[in-house]
């Protein structure tokens, strides 16, 4: 007897419909799974067999062949277990076939017959809606995630027994839950008010958040670089539902998403400096998203920037400019979103103490190497650069600065101004404007432009630097509520602009 069950395979960040065909006929007892499955798919035979037997059902001792169609698509992971079990149950006549037409099944099985959570349920649910299915059967732990998609009925099953119950028409569906975006960031323990004696650092962080600009923090150990960077997500605008869905889809597919429902805070990713380029931008034999994609709509923090391999950092350049990355492996090409704010931190020298009295113990070649590593094309694209010093001891007892809440309000106001200006364009904040949009949309006063020209003529700025300073100045003006960019806004942007070329000469 033959049964057909619908399920979905994850390909990049999308799901593709897969039909599991199970055929049972007389012959020597055997269970074969064909259709380009990976090791986890092949092992699923053992899980399905044990789960059925341990749940009190019969595992037919006949010749069983399962095919995952389309046969040309690579399929990975244990998420096909539930569909296979349903196929075997229906094909062996232990469950009625009626529900199979309109429902998709996804989930991993334990040997005892429990249904375990699996990855990528949100993408699967979106696929199910796209194919016009009535509903989706998922593990209980993933039910909230699946209900994020409208127009799809969701049934949560905890075991094989419940699965059979559903196939016999006994189980109730869950209601979709539309609004799950909570306004408050759940990361309550981090707040900008904890940062003392770093007013300029807090200011630069606010500008970075308001315009989506990348930031380089520079300073000796203990100056508070990491402390500041970790607080950037707390002052970014609250997530829109669309953004939250995107983050949830990505995190669910890579298995980062452990809680139920929608991700409601912006990601903060801080990969170690030993990371490879495919780890950072995505890749691998089976393409997987990299850290820059995991940081989508959030913050990518690279601590000890000078320790990262040069090639790794250069690979990051295109994704940061374009907001997406295309990974090509063999015949497959996958496009991942990569719109994150990059925050990099570095010590002023390899030992970290340059400029702290004469405590620095680095040799001149060490320093030169350090500077060289920090002068690549990626660093050139960091719009804001700020030097931090350890705060004086008195600063630690000073009154608190603004809270994350207060700063976020200002950031959201500045973003609102920007989205009005950028309406209808692909760019959503100042940092994403291309050069034509910058010259079309940024209005600067005469004195502001003359200061920019002065800086340009003093070979203080390159042509690209000119554009970038203008974008940062626009953000500063937005924060100040100014319609045109004034001289002091350009001044602040220039003061926050790094320029390595000049130091290179003195080396």
């Amino acid at each position, binding site marked *: 007897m033959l049964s057909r069950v619908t399920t979905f395979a994850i390909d990049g960040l999308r799901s593709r419909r897969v039909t599991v065909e199970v055929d049972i006929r007389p012959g020597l007892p055997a269970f074969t799974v064909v259709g380009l499955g990976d090791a986890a798919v092949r092992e699923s035979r053992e899980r399905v067999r044990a789960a059925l037997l341990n749940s009190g059902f019969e595992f037919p001792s006949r010749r069983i062949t399962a095919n995952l169609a389309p046969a040309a698509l690579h399929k990975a992971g244990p998420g096909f277990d539930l569909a296979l079990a349903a196929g075997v149950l229906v094909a062996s006549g232990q469950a009625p076939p009626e529900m199979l037409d309109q429902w998709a099944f996804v989930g991993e099985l334990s040997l005892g017959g429990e249904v375990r959570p699996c990855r990528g349920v949100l993408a699967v649910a979106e696929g199910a809606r796209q194919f016009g299915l009535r509903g989706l059967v998922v593990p209980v732990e993933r039910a909230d995630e699946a209900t994020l998609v409208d127009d799809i009925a969701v049934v949560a099953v905890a075991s094989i027994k419940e699965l059979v119950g559903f196939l016999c028409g006994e189980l109730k569906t869950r209601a979709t839950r539309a609004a799950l975006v909570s306004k408050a960031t759940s990361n309550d323990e981090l707040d900008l008010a904890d940062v003392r004696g770093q007013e300029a650092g807090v200011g630069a962080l606010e500008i970075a958040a308001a315009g989506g600009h990348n930031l380089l923090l*520079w300073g000796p150990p203990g100056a508070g670089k990491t402390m500041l960077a970790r607080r950037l997500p707390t002052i970014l605008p609250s997530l829109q539902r669309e953004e939250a869905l995107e983050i949830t889809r990505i995190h669910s597919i890579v298995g980062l998403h452990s809680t139920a429902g929608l991700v409601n805070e912006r990601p903060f990713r801080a990969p170690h400096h030993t990371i490879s380029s495919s780890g950072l931008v995505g890749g691998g034999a089976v393409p997987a998203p990299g850290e820059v994609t995991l940081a989508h709509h959030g913050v990518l923090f690279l601590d000890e920037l000078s320790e990262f391999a040069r090639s790794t950092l250069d690979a990051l350049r295109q994704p940061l400019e374009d907001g997406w990355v295309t990974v090509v492996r063999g015949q497959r090409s996958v496009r991942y979103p990569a719109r994150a704010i990059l925050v990099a931190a570095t010590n002023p020298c390899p030992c970290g103490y340059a400029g702290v009295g004469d405590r620095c113990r680095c040799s001149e070649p060490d320093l030169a190497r350090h500077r060289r590593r920090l002068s690549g094309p990626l660093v050139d694209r960091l719009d804001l650069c700020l*030097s931090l010093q350890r705060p004086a001891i008195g600063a630690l007892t000073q009154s608190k600065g603004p809270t994350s809440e207060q700063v976020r309000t200002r950031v959201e106001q500045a973003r609102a101004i920007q989205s009005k200006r950028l309406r209808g364009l692909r760019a959503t904040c100042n940092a994403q404007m291309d050069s034509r949009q910058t010259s079309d949309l940024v209005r600067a006063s005469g004195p502001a432009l003359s200061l920019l020209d002065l800086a340009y003529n003093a070979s203080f700025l390159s042509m690209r630097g000119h554009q970038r300073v203008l974008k940062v100045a626009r953000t500063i003006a937005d924060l100040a509520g100014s319609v045109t960019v004034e001289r002091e806004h350009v001044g602040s942007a220039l003061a926050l602009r790094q*320029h390595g070329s000049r130091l290179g000469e*003195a080396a």
Partner: protein
Amino acid sequence: MGQFLQDQPPRSGACDGCLRRADLVARLGPHIETAHAMRLGRPRILALSDDRLIDELGGRHAGALRAGCDRFSTSQARAHAVAAGINTTCRHEHLHYPKALLELSDPPAALHWIGRPGALRELTSEVRRCAAVVGARKASEYGLEVARSLGRDLSEAGVTVVSGMALGVDGAAHEGAIEAGGRTVAVLGGGADVAYPPSKRRLHGRLAATGVVISEMPPGCRVWRWSFPARNRIIAGLAAVTIVVEAQRRSGSLITAQFATDLDRELGAVPGRVTSALARGPNDLLADGAVVVRDAGDVLDLLGIERPTLAPPPQLMPVQAAVLAAVLAGAETLSAITATVNDGDGVMLALVELELGGRVRRDLGGRYTPVGI
């Protein structure tokens, strides 16, 4: 070869004997290194005659060394030097050879230099218009800034800045002098065409273009440890004043200072913080009677040259003046400066204006230091 060729062809004015001597010293390099390592006697060993040098240092290689010397062809050496764009002169040629060097107990026999053929004479003939600026390789920001401004201001006042093209203070002094037109002389321990240290390749090229790079060693010669004290005696010998900017207690710059004292030349030192190891050298010299050097004016006084009247710096806006005062008082980062001067965006604007006006400098990491002294 030939990368330093100028518009005019290089002149080779050194006599055969002196070229032969330079070649011999280069040949003896490793032997002097051993003698130096065993502290048999400092570079004054170079005062010995050719034969005695071979006897003292050659040991069992004396025969081979003599044979090598006999094979040496002066015409070939001259052709080589010309092909590499290197000028030569020797102590027997009074027109080009700096007379001040003859006061040394062991003056270099031949001098090889890169630059215009007339430049050596222009820059070094008058010892009262030469000042040596030397100091630590691992200098602090402060030391580099002082060396740079001394180099710039002295060169501007028509004083030749002599130094050793080393990392740190030496290089900064040359850079400053080049900024102001390039009245500067670099003395190298190896061949004049060998950029040592290699990281100073660009500076070497610029020095060759605007100033002079000189060496007593033949072209292509490598450096030994003894090359540095030997080079230092030439630096001290060329200048009427030697200024030590920053130096630890066991620093080569103090050897230069010793040579200057032995030659009865003036010695100046730039005071530093008493807690800094880099200030020990100059502060010790000051305690022993060296002249305090705070700016180029102090050096000009020592040389007996009138201080040039400086154009008054342009008027600053109040906020600019306040920011500059904060930077002069040691505030380095934006946080520190905004903590002192409370004027929001105005502070950043003032900083940028001061930077564009050349009053403060910002390093790669965004730390501010005042320019000039």
